[in-house]
């Protein structure tokens, strides 16, 4: 083997893997072939470190309309001949290098995955993680990412209905930018990204192909990067206008029976898109690169095959159907060209005009080596988990001062300054807007609604990768249940550090284990997902961050509730626990512990059985029209929960229950399986009966009303004061 290490490094292929390529081909690959292998054997496309762990999830998905990982996105049937298409995807490293375009094209990519299934995209969510906003460089990344999402999403007319934004030093220089897209489709219209038979044409539509994004999948997404690397050319540039007309034209074109399949050209460009189609179709493929419309002159086959130019789609078209298809794209002034055809062979044959450049077996390209991961628990984690939280000093400051410090911290403060830059009303389906627990969309032509949420807590997953992931799933589902909807499916965004490090391997193994367990307990299958590895900040792995996107169904969208306290005199009732207040261990991995004590410690806990019962009670109470508002306790504890329901409802509240335990844990402990609801005093008996039937502890702890928020005899603060601080602090930080 005479291959140079630098060449392999550029495409993130190891010496060992190069040896495997030679074994499979029984010869050395050409430069072009090496490019194909680099892309398809990249971590991003090949899932080398996660495929074995995800196998259980994919086996569990056998009964779904589309098996996990089989198509561009996952599908869940919600009845009445309607299916939902959903997927989350990361664009972390591009966003670190070029925040605006990185984030914009992240949105663009996930939208294409959804309409590739034939579905009309109806919602976008973003799960974002950044370094602390006080830092100038982080501020640049935050504002760039947010404007990129705003620029791309708003132009396309898909509402951005929610997500989360989280700040921590662990994401400094390596932000997490995960975008989720949801589409709606009739069951019998679901597309598959494959060809029917040999002779079918491979048709490329959309943007011309340029030199942008070469090595995006291999070089950028599949290894750690240094800030001074010359990687900007690996970031693509987006054109949302073209994407918008590409959606409309593709959705029009698939109505033709001549169009057999539709596939997004995403990471690794035509290489990955075309070869995935061939593999699914169990056919070979010939591609003539000279037929690819080019944006720049003198592009060679290597560049054309690996370019990640945005806003391109591949179609498989019946052999006599090209002209009919082209007519539709002509109407929209979109380029449409046949670049190859499916063949009765098992290889990918690349031509440049008459000249044959390569012929490579599909199975070699699509079967990278898969690695086993270590399950050894690192010792440092034992030490963090075993911290005795009861020994942490209770602050001597006035509790109100501590509350204000928490309320104005970037993770707790209102995110309005960010989500008001995204259109969340377009398509006129948005019933619950961003800013609450989960959002809710009605489905036109049906009484149903879908509730959407993304959730993760990197800190808790760091402290216990398995329990932290159980909590992430539980919380995504809890948010959905708080609107009245029942969680039915999940999508996962795995964001981890370098998988070649043993600690990260342990985190991955444990977290995916948790995901499998939670998915089963909630009867919510994981229908799609994405893995982004090699996320590091200053040489350290980021917090393992398994982002969960959840979707729930409500039979009648009119029956929803939101988080807002409504009427003077309503009772405030805790579901899931017999006290409003948190306990000492609820401080594990809490915001309070980090903000006030600068510690990330403790052993997070969750009782999934209680969780399931509590969520069910919440949904029943909403369905029976007893519960008027519902909001789950999460970051910042019950104090933040009550304040958010007060501010959004424009009315005060008083929690009467006496505080017996330490007050900091009581107010700021992040108890799981706890939902705070408000009900009319007349309904307390009915709610109690319902709770007893479902074996869920509940307790009436206070009342809605007045213009202050009062926590027992500890804190009294006017709504006006707390609202102003909560509302404006992040905006001021980002200026």
């Amino acid at each position, binding site marked *: 083997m005479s291959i140079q290490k630098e060449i392999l490094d550029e495409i993130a292929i190891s010496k060992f893997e190069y040896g495997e390529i030679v074994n499979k081909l029984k010869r050395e690959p050409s430069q072009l072939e090496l490019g194909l292998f680099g892309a398809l054997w990249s971590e991003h496309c090949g899932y080398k470190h996660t495929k074995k762990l995800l196998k259980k999830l994919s086996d569990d998905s056998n009964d779904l309309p589309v098996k996990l990982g089989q198509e561009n996105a996952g599908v869940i049937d919600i009845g009445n001949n309607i299916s939902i298409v959903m997927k989350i995807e990361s664009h972390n490293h591009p966003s670190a290098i070029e925040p605006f375009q990185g984030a914009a094209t992240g949105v663009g990519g996930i939208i294409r995955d959804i309409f590739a299934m034939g579905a009309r995209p109806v919602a976008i969510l973003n799960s974002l993680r950044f370094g602390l906003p006080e830092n100038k460089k982080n501020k640049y990344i935050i504002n760039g990412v947010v404007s990129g999402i705003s620029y791309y999403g708003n132009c396309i007319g898909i509402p951005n209905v929610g997500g989360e934004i989280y700040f921590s030093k662990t994401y400094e220089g390596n932000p997490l930018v995960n975008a989720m897209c949801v589409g709606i489709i009739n069951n019998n219209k679901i597309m598959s990204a494959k060809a029917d038979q040999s002779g079918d044409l491979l048709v490329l539509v959309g943007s011309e192909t340029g030199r942008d994004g070469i090595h995006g999948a291999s070089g950028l997404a599949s290894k750690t990067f240094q800030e001074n690397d010359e990687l900007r050319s690996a970031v693509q540039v987006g054109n949302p206008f073209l994407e918008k007309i590409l959606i409309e034209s593709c959705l029009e074109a698939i109505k033709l029976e001549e169009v057999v399949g539709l596939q997004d050209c995403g990471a690794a460009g035509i290489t990955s898109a075309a070869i995935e189609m061939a593999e699914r179709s169990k056919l070979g493929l010939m591609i003539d690169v000279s037929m690819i419309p080019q944006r720049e002159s003198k592009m060679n086959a290597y560049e054309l095959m690996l370019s990640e130019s945005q806003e391109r789609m591949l179609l498989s078209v019946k052999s006599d159907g090209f002209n009919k298809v082209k007519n539709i794209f002509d109407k929209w002034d979109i380029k449409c060209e046949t670049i190859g055809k499916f063949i009765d062979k098992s290889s990918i044959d690349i031509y440049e005009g008459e000249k044959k450049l390569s012929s490579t077996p599909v199975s070699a390209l699509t079967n990278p080596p898969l690695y086993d991961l270590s399950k050894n628990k690192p010792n440092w984690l034992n030490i963090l988990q075993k911290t005795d939280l009861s020994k942490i000093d209770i602050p001597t400051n006035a509790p109100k001062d501590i509350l204000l410090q928490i309320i104005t911290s970037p993770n707790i403060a209102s995110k309005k300054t960010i989500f008001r830059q995204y259109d969340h*009303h377009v398509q006129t389906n948005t019933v619950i807007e961003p800013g609450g627990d989960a959002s809710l969309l009605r489905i036109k032509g049906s009484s149903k609604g879908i509730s959407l949420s993304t959730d993760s807590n990197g800190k808790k997953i760091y402290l216990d990768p398995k329990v932290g992931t159980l909590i992430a799933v539980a919380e995504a589902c809890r948010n959905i249940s708080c609107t009245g909807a029942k969680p039915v499916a999940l999508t996962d965004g795995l964001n981890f550090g370098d998988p070649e490090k043993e600690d990260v391997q342990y985190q991955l193994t444990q977290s995916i284990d948790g995901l499998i367990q939670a998915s089963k307990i909630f009867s919510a299958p994981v229908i799609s997902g994405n893995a982004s590895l090699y996320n590091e900040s200053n040489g350290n792995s980021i917090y393992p961050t398994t982002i969960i996107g959840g979707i729930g169904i409500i039979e009648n*969208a009119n029956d929803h509730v939101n988080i807002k306290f409504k009427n003077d005199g309503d009772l405030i009732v805790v579901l899931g626990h017999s006290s409003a207040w948190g306990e000492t261990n609820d401080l594990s991995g809490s915001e309070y512990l980090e903000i006030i004590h600068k510690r990330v410690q403790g052993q997070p806990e969750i009782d999934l059985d209680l969780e399931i019962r509590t969520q069910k009670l919440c949904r029943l109470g909403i369905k029976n029209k007893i519960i008027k508002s519902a909001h789950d306790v999460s970051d910042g504890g019950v104090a933040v929960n009550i304040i958010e329901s007060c501010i959004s409802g424009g009315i005060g509240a008083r929690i009467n229950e006496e505080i017996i335990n330490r007050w900091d844990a009581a107010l700021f402990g992040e108890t799981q399986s706890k939902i705070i609801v408000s009900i009319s005093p007349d309904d307390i008996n009915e709610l109690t009966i319902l709770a007893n039937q479902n074996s869920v502890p509940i307790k009436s702890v206070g009342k809605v009303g007045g213009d202050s928020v009062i926590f027992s005899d500890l804190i009294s603060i006017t709504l006006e004061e707390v609202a102003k601080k909560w509302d404006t602090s992040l905006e001021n930080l980002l200026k």
Partner: protein
Amino acid sequence: MNIGIVVYPGTWSEKDCFYSLSNVNKQFCEFIWHKDEDTNLENFDAIILPGGFSYGDFLRSGSIASLSPIMEKIKVYADKGNPIIGICNGFQILCESNLLPGTLIRNNNLQFRCEWSNIKVANNETIFTSSIKKNKILSIPISHGEGNYYADKKTIDELENNNQIIFRYSDRNGYIDQFSNPNGSVNNIAGIINKRGNILGMMPHPEKACEEIIGGTDGNLIFQSLINAYSRPDK
């Protein structure tokens, strides 16, 4: 009524307008593709230019759309006194086509803004507001990065003197000042009509506020005014 909704490449609120007028208000609606040469606008009782990013808003918002083949027909249609509503990008296109005075520049906060805005009805003697009480505050979403209405002083004075400013951004109590202005528009202008009163341009999206389940019905008051004006016997 028979309402034509114009679609350019990049338009995105045409389906929302269609749903609000057809499903909610039971009017007959039809999409008009901007390049369709066979379209006869005389078949329509009103035309809507919906919101979105026609041609990606490249160059300037609405500028490329204002050169599209349909615009010549729309000018003839307007000259005959027929009703036209331009919403958001539609308003920008009407300004670029000189069917309405002034222009819409970048929001003074330099950010895209999506939120429920309050607009005060400053003139209810128009076909677009006749069913609304004067000075009523409507809650209607905005969604734009370039909604900052600007015109020279002479034009603004004319608009003021002729009662052509029909919507102004205000707070929920109707107070009009810089704090209730989401984009920096001169005199808090949210919507204007032409002198003749048959062309309305407005930045807020009435089609996004026609049903309780999505947050409110104030936008529908504008559509209902138009429908009522059309069905009045003296028409």
